[in-house]
């Protein structure tokens, strides 16, 4: 009994650490999963870098609009159009929702 419950406790903690409340798992999963790749430049916690903007804690609809606009190349924009063209609107919504929920 003892070892089993210890282990059970560990795994429960693990599940909550990574996925939060069970009911929210599905909704948050896609955005969080897609965002893994963004973190390489924008930071694991979405905090941005010296010249690369932060994403965490941004207003969801504002960020979504900005990502939609960045699908088209324009003056002063470097790599984002080449990346964002590969994401559909549902994915952009999931990403915007994910970053909006993160602590800035």
């Amino acid at each position, binding site marked *: 009994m003892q070892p089993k419950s210890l282990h059970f406790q560990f795994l429960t903690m693990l599940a909550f*650490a990574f996925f939060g409340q069970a009911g929210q798992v599905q909704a948050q999963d896609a955005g969080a*999963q897609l965002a893994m790749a963004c973190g390489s430049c924008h930071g694991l916690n979405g905090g941005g870098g*010296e010249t690369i903007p932060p994403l965490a804690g941004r207003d969801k609809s504002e960020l979504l609009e900005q990502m939609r606009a960045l699908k088209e190349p324009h003056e002063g924009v470097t790599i984002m159009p080449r990346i964002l063209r590969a994401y559909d609107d549902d994915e952009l919504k999931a990403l915007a929702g994910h970053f909006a929920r993160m602590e800035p």
Partner: protein
Amino acid sequence: MTIARRSFVSGLLAAPFAPSLLHARTAPRVVILGGGFGGGTLARALKRAAPTLSVTLIERESVVYTCPFSNGVLGGMWALDRVGFSTDGLRADGIELIRSDAAAIEPERKTVVLADGSRISGDVLVLAPGIDFKWSAIEGMSPEAAELLPHAWKAGRQTQILRDQLTAMDDGGLVVVSIPAPPFRCPPGPYERISLIAHYLMHHKPASKILVLDAQDSFSKQPLFEEAWEALYPGMIERVPGSASGAVVAVDAATRRISTGFDDVTADVANVIPPQTAARILIDAGLDEGLGWCPVEPLGFESRLVKDVYILGDAALQGDMPKSGFSANVQAKACAASILARLEGRAVNPTKLINVCYSLAAPDYGFSVADVFIQGPEKVTLLQAEGRITALAAGAQAHAAEAAHAKSWYDTITSEIFG
């Protein structure tokens, strides 16, 4: 809470991983070999998501020198320190760091055997030891010869040897850069290196020349590199492609004689980058299936040969993803999600992954290839084949912005892995 537990437990019982875990008395242990871009990222990602998980990282170096930005050392843009990170940072978040050389892997036992004979075993084994060189592919090449003809394709001491040779060379000297057939670590890396060596020579030894002996015909971001070379270093760089017998087949380290089989040349400085394979320790363990690189499945980068053994970064065949630090970092995060999902007895869905490789043609002149991939059923697949690189004639402002982004990327990723 009750519902969450019930679904959690039934998921766990359904999981292929469950039997060994159910018998474990303590937290599952993940053992990671290699604290570079793949292994270092993975250790941090696991610990951050699941602080009670036991994570053990085996790394031989006390200071890891990153290959990214090491070409800047050769160009005189910064000293080697700029790319060196103490592995003490890897102890962050409660990661158990074992500073030791791994001698062998026993994949079925999820065990790494250290040089002192001790054995480190886990429930899950993740291997990210990078590359090794096929010395025998070039007659006369060997680890000893590389002291005189540095590859500098693993950063650190080798980078410094090449830098010192460049600074010691007289003006009017000949630098030979030899590039192997693919696949090798960092497809645009040799051409960034040529650019930044040219930058150094242009400012300090302008009568010098660079001869590029290339086993490849075409190369990554070729139009952008050629545009930059024409504009910044006219007449300094001559390249012999593979179809014109550019591949180096033999060298004589003592005299710096470099042979393509078609022609011989004596270099003042020779940067000979040998052909590459996955780190030998993986090949010795049979994890490459005789291919020289390790086959992995596309979702979490688990070995196709041994369950609960994952292989990240340059050592693996990662579908369409290039062998880059960026790729290794992204793969490590997907791998962490896969490992945690399996521990929880849950399936993980495929997602999209990114690789961006910046190159510097000069300190303020950057450009990039930017790609998105999908984790397909068979492999990680590139989504858009066209328009992947910075536009030609982008202008000084765009190149300056990309150079600044390259530095921003590098500082963010290294501080998150090693900081």
